């Protein structure tokens, strides 16, 4: 699965995007985060405050309990501040 990061999440992780093959038991967005958090100290820090994270699965905004099956891309970012 392709992971893309924006704003403070991108800066904390130190990259725009990365690709991982997920274990089969990772079924939701929240489980993705739990799994990714183990991949580096930067990921752990970036995902520490879950209340400050928002998600888009294949470019649709979703909640943490969203099912990721079939999705190609998960975007992880802080609450939006445009306008």
């Amino acid at each position: 699965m392709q992971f893309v990061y924006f704003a403070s999440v991108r800066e904390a992780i130190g990259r725009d995007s990365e690709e991982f093959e997920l274990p089969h038991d990772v079924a939701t967005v929240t489980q993705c985060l739990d799994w990714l958090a183990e991949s580096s100290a930067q990921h752990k820090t970036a995902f520490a405050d879950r209340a400050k994270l928002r998600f888009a699965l294949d470019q649709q905004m979703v909640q943490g309990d969203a099912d990721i099956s079939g999705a190609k891309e998960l975007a992880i970012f802080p609450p939006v501040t445009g306008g």
Partner: protein
Amino acid sequence: MITVRVQTEFFDVGAELTPLEKLGGGAVASFTGIARQDGDVVAIELEHFPGMTEASLRKLAEQATERWNLLGATVIHRIGRIEVGESIVFVATCSDHRAEALAACSYLIDRLKTDAPFWKKEHREDGRADWVEAKASDNARAEDWG
């Protein structure tokens, strides 16, 4: 007629309003958001999610068009570095009547603030730069539209 653009370039408010004024409606409303002088902020920087941004702006414009029976809606958002005093965002609507055009214009800017994937960083005089925190008041206003 829906127009959605994400661009680094300046936009010309007069040129953007002209096509909306020619749709045959009796009312055109617009809103321009400007990087405001605020403490020691000298510029802001806008990051976005290419592809998703345009789609989310288009969806908002379509929702507004249906809800208020608009003849046209335009949403333009700049990205990249924007100096204090420069325009950031432009929203405009055309409808037969003023109440619809004005309500739809408010809706578009309120919902854009919470639904479109943009992130704003403030650059300060001393070189520091901080990501702007999302405001609870913006969420409350967006939710008021149901």
